[in-house]
């Protein structure tokens, strides 16, 4: 693991991006330390991708401060990009050339010699489980293989920071888990990861620290665990009542747990002891059809911050 110097690799204050009248990112502050894995979590259109594009030095900052590797993207964009690895949301692989050539030519973009680029391409193909497909064209590869190739390509310059914009969107569960495992290995070895996602499980798996974005602003920040303890309870009891009963519940559950959410199809009770909450409900003579006690997740935090419970 690299030493942790005081200076953050990414430093943003009042960072803003406007397109004509639309404000995509509205004055956000954050820092990313070396070796950290940092996430932007938020619904579609929250401004995650715009923030990522500014960090990737391909989108000029409208307002505010952004320093990456202690350099200014406005004047040293190409220099910073030389130290980044980028996994974009939409594949940008060259479908007309082979898997290996995709890596080798990318290495050339970073100024590597042909021999060095070929050597690294060989190693990365092993890492991405693509060695057997090295000579194949990109087009027939599965979605998971293409993503792994994109990640391998992003590593060819041994980047200081790896940027991943929704890395597993559209993949099947097997492909997602293989990708997470590869990313986790990178993280263990000290690569600084910055990713965006709207998958809660992905954020919990991969992020040391994350910010929740909603409507172009940061609405919460912390580790997955601290966000859960700050914005939710330890456990959630989910109950479904027979048709007819659900509508009459009204205030009959008041006082149970820390917080109660009445949804059209079920009732959520937030508390530190889900079993006890369920027992208390039964004690009031209410018999749910199904009861599920589960640990609170980032999804609960997310919905509370960006979704339905903000409305109440």
């Amino acid at each position, binding site marked *: 693991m*690299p030493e942790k*110097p005081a*200076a953050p*690799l990414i430093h943003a204050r009042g960072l803003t991006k406007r*397109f004509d009248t639309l404000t995509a990112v509205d004055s956000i502050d954050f820092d990313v330390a*070396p070796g950290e894995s940092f996430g932007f979590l938020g619904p579609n259109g929250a401004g995650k991708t715009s923030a990522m*594009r500014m960090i*990737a030095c*391909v*989108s*000029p900052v409208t307002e505010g401060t952004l320093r990456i*590797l*202690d*350099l200014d993207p406005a004047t*040293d*964009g*190409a*220099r*910073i*990009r*030389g*130290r*980044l*690895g*980028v996994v*974009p949301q*939409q*594949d*940008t*692989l*060259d*479908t*007309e*050339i082979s898997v290996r*050539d995709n890596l080798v*030519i*990318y290495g*050339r*973009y*970073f*100024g590597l010699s042909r021999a060095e680029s070929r050597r*690294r391409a060989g*190693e*990365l193909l*092993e*890492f991405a*489980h693509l060695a057997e497909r090295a000579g194949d064209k990109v087009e027939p590869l599965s979605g998971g293989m293409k993503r792994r190739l994109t990640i*391998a390509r992003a*590593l*060819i*310059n*041994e*980047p*200081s920071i790896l940027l991943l914009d929704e890395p597993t969107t559209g993949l099947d569960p097997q492909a997602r888990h293989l990708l997470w495992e590869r990313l986790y*290995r*990178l993280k263990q*070895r*000290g*690569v*600084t990861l910055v990713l965006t996602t709207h998958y809660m499980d992905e954020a919990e798996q991969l992020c040391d620290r994350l910010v929740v974005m909603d409507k172009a602003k940061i609405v919460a920040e912390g580790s997955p665990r601290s966000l859960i303890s700050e914005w939710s309870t330890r456990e959630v009891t989910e109950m479904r009542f027979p048709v007819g009963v659900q509508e009459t519940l009204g205030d009959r559950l008041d006082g149970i747990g820390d917080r109660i959410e009445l949804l059209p199809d079920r009732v959520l009770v937030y508390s530190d002891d889900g079993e006890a909450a369920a027992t208390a409900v039964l004690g009031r003579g209410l018999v749910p059809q199904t009861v599920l006690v589960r640990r609170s997740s980032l999804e609960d935090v997310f919905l509370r911050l960006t979704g339905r419970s903000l409305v109440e």
Partner: protein
Amino acid sequence: MAVADVPGLPQPHRTGDAVPRPSPLAGLRAAYEHQWLLYVRTWRGSIFGNFAQPVLFLLAMGIGLGSYVDKANSAAMGGVPYLEFLAPALLVSTVMQGAVFEATFPVLAGFTWVRRYHAMFATPLTPFAIAFGQLAWIATRATLVGSIFLVVIVLFRAAATPGIIFSVPVGTLTALAFAGPIAAFMSSQRDTSAFNSIWRFGITPLFLFSGTFFPIEQLPAIIRPLAWLLPLWHGVDLARSLALDTAWQDPLVQVAHVVVLTTFAVGGAVAMFVMFRRRLER
């Protein structure tokens, strides 16, 4: 499963002044190299086409049609065999068409469906390197196609004088006069709808009425200025004058041709760079 070791590990984190500066020239070279990589996959079919097209055109137009023209003993052709009149002009027109193709389809693909340019821009490559890497490749292709055409012309004994050699650089200059402006325009497009219009209403009429097959003096007087405005006629007339060794008769006209072609080429290249930057930096 055995744990694969992790390549691509970061170097010790360097920040500020310690971050290396990438070389702009290396970037330009890498963007150009990518084009070669794409070309070598299909070069056999492509080279065959580059030979076959001039052979067919020179057979049908130069020898087939030409035998009638020569019988009529037309003075409009300057008293030379039609094949010799046609050959340098056809070279320039063919090279121009190839360059237009290279400036439309691959450019649109680079921005929209293959997204090659976006991949390049995620690296130290600048819009400058991306635009001029593409343009340098178009110039290379033009020179290659022109050289093959030249070989065919010589094999057909269609060369009036050794001045036919100049048709190749004139062809490349004409190619650039078209490629820059068209690539600039294509980089503002989201789909192929403009693509067909460019060919149907632009390139094909231009090919037919820019003095390649007959002197533009044969065109109605109202249309003639149109041929002067667009760069193809300038390339055709320049290449023909050099090939037939008549350039010395009116040297100022030849200089004007070069000036027009260069203006289009340089203006187009600048426009292409500006448009590429606008599309990439959003």
